[in-house]
Each structure stands twice: as C-alpha cells, then as structure tokens.
C-alpha cells in the first residue's frame, strides 16, 4: 500500500524549538544563535562582547563536538555558561538546547547566546528557539562562501565580517561577499568587525542592544 503524505522532517525539531522559544519568551529573554565555520572567531567575539555589556545579564550555551575548552573561557569571565557536547554531531538542535537551558538561571538573565558547533552548513537547518541567527564570516575564509554555503547566509539576520584587520593580507572582497549575501537575503545586516583591534565592535554592540530592547518592548 502506498500512502501519499507531505510530512516535514524537521517539524519534530521545530516543535521543540517553539517550546524553547516559549520558555525564553516567558522570561522576556532575547536569544541569539551564533554560527560560523570553526575558527572564524565565535568564542573570541563572545569574550569581547561579554566584557562590554555591563548593563545586560547574559548567559551562554556552548556547543562543541568535544571538550569544555570554550565553556572554560566563558566561565573565566564569571558568566553563567553551560557546555553541550554533541559527541560527533555537527550542530545543536532544539532538544540539546532544551537540556542545556535547564542548567542556566533563566529568570536572572536578559540575553542567552547560543554558540553553535563550528560548521558552515548544518547549524542553519536546525532551529533552537532563537530570536535571531547571527553568523560570522572571517575574511581569511574567502569571499566565495555566501554562494558556496548559501543556506546560513539566507537564514541569518546579521553577518559579521570578522578579522578585517587582516584584510590587506588576503584577496577577500567585502563588496563581493556583501553583494552575494544580500542577493541571497536582502534583509541581512552586515557589520565589518575585528575582534582583535575592536573595529566595528560599537556597531555590533549597538545592534545587539537594539534587538534586546526591541524584544523587551515587544
């Protein structure tokens, strides 16, 4: 017997993500899903960001295949953090984040930043209950990435072009990367950033504060 159906395979994950979102909303929390390739600067961005937001109480969910090295870096800043090891999995999903957030003092936080597993492909497919997806592309990775890995660029609210202090040593074209990203996602915000020398950090922090306040106001 053949049965015709239209059943969304990611629906089970999306359902859990919606439940996570309801939990976050009940606490008035703004949640950001931070994604990039390995080594693009996610944890460094977090370290710099956490030190620059005295007015906001931030919690962090760290996703890595193995080790708690990143969580230790965040913990050293005195920020509530929970490490999720995916044990080989290439992304965080709704269920993993659900288990992680139980260990965070949600009632005492304004913002939760979920640092996804370093991977330019799969994290973009799995909702975790976030308000926004933000991605980092570092200039050393090359400007061809939006067209080669289109899904993440098309799903993200904001693209951070990191390591611009190294721009002169690369062939990276900011114009090409920006134009291709906007072709995939006309609404995407783009900020040029250097976590190392601080360029663009004010713009990023102001974007983040704006989103947090918009969520509270809404």
């Amino acid at each position, binding site marked *: *017997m053949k*049965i015709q*159906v*239209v059943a969304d395979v990611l629906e*089970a994950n999306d359902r859990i993500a919606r439940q996570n979102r309801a939990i976050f909303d009940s606490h008035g929390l703004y949640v950001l899903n931070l994604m990039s390739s390995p080594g693009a600067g996610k944890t460094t961005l977090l370290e710099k960001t956490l030190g620059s937001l005295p007015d906001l109480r931030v919690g962090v969910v760290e996703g890595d295949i193995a080790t708690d090295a990143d969580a230790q870096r965040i913990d050293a800043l005195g920020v509530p953090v929970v490490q999720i090891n995916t044990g080989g999995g*290439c992304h965080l*999903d709704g269920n993993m984040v659900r288990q992680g957030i139980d260990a965070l003092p949600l009632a005492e936080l304004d913002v939760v930043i979920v640092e996804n597993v370093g991977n330019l492909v799969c994290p973009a*497919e799995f909702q975790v209950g976030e308000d926004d997806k933000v991605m980092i592309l570092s200039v050393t990775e090359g400007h061809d990435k939006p067209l080669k890995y289109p899904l993440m660029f098309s799903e993200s609210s904001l693209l951070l072009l990191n390591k611009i202090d190294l721009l002169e040593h690369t062939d990276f074209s900011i114009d090409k990367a920006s134009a291709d990203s*906007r*072709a995939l996602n006309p609404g995407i915000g783009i900020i040029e950033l250097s976590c190392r020398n601080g360029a663009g950090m004010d713009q990023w922090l102001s974007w983040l504060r704006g989103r947090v306040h918009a969520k509270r106001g809404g």
Partner: protein
Amino acid sequence: MHELSIARGIVSTVEEIAAGRRLGQVKHIKVQAGEMLGVVPESLSFCFGFAAEGTRAAGARVDIEIVPAEGLCETCGSHFELNSYSYTCPCGSRSFQMISGKELRVVEVETV
C-alpha cells in the same frame, strides 16, 4: 554529517505517519530534499540504515529527490533556477523570493 540527524528525523516522521494510520512494516519511503540543504543522497541512505534499526522502517529503501532551488523574480515575475554561482534572474535582476530549495519532507510511504 547532518545526514545522520536528517535520517533520524525521517525515521521519526515515518514512525508518526505509520502509528497514526496503524500501518505495519514500511518497505519504501520517498523523500524530497531541497538543494540548499546540501544533502548527499548516498550518505543519507547509509545513515538511514542505522537510524531505522528496530523501527517499522527497518530495512526500508529511501528514494531521495533533490528539489532544485528556484526563485520568483520580483522584477520580471518569472520563475528561474538558482544557480550555485549566480543568484541572478536571466533578466539581470538579483531581487527575488526563494520558492523552493529548502524543503525536507517525506512525500510517500509504502508498506509491505
């Protein structure tokens, strides 16, 4: 390796369909996967074999149809295929809505 997560998702989707309709053993499943997801069919079939062990879908064959990414041009109104290296309508416009290419769904289940 997102194929393993996707394979698990397909198994639970098929289990839900089968439970809801009181179906028995499943022998064949058709899946549509959008081109944007970058699913490797061979890898997905391989992972599915493990993910389905001990379920009604154990041993089932999975056919994976890759759905091309298509845009609807906001300038000239035509449908066009999004090519990996140029997200541009043949009319030259880069303003479009993506109408397919991100889907991941089970479209047919065949029982023994």
